[in-house]
């Protein structure tokens, strides 16, 4: 699997957002970021 395919995999992005929400004290930013990324996918 190519590196870009791993790095930009939707699970990797969602996992990074979840982990950063725990580690970085910017709750309002990650509240928005997780909600924004959640708009991806099927309707």
């Amino acid at each position, binding site marked *: 699997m190519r590196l*870009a*395919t791993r*790095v*930009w*995999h*939707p*699970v990797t*992005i*969602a*996992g990074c*957002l*979840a*982990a*950063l*929400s*725990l580690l970085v*004290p*910017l*709750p*309002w*930013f*990650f*509240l*928005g*970021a*997780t*909600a*924004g*990324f*959640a*708009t*991806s*996918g*099927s*309707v």
Partner: protein
Amino acid sequence: MGARWSFCGGLLLGALTTAMGLLLAGSLIRLAAPPAVWRWVLVGAMVLLVLREFGVLRFWLPQNKRLVPEHVHRHGRVFGPLQFGFEMGTSLRTYTPSALPHAAALMIALWAGPLAAVLAGVGFGLGRSAMTTGNLLYSDDNTWDLAFIEHERLIRALLVAGFAVSTAVALVF
């Protein structure tokens, strides 16, 4: 490259515009009750929306089920994607497959201060941009969407976990 950046810039501007609009409207609604009441209203709403996100509950949520029309591209390689991104970023002219944007909107309207609303707006715009960026850098054949659908339950769980932690911290501090 230029089109992608202007699209993402549009997403950011659109999300910021909605966040500011929600803050303005919410500042009037908040006058109806003290903050302690709004805190519990938000806790209740977050629980309901998270349950909906996992399919435990089913109820209608407002969304404008229309796509941005193709003719925005007539504005050129920079302003076309910018307008496209802006309209998508506002979330007022798009499909919304998740309840988290509604939850974020309630948080901004009923709890955020000006700086918090800006941060949430920027976060929302970048979160949406991550979809476009990820899709383009993952592969050339739209398999990113297939990967998303394949792992949708795990992705939703991760996003809800991050959202829940952020919301709890924002409500407490």
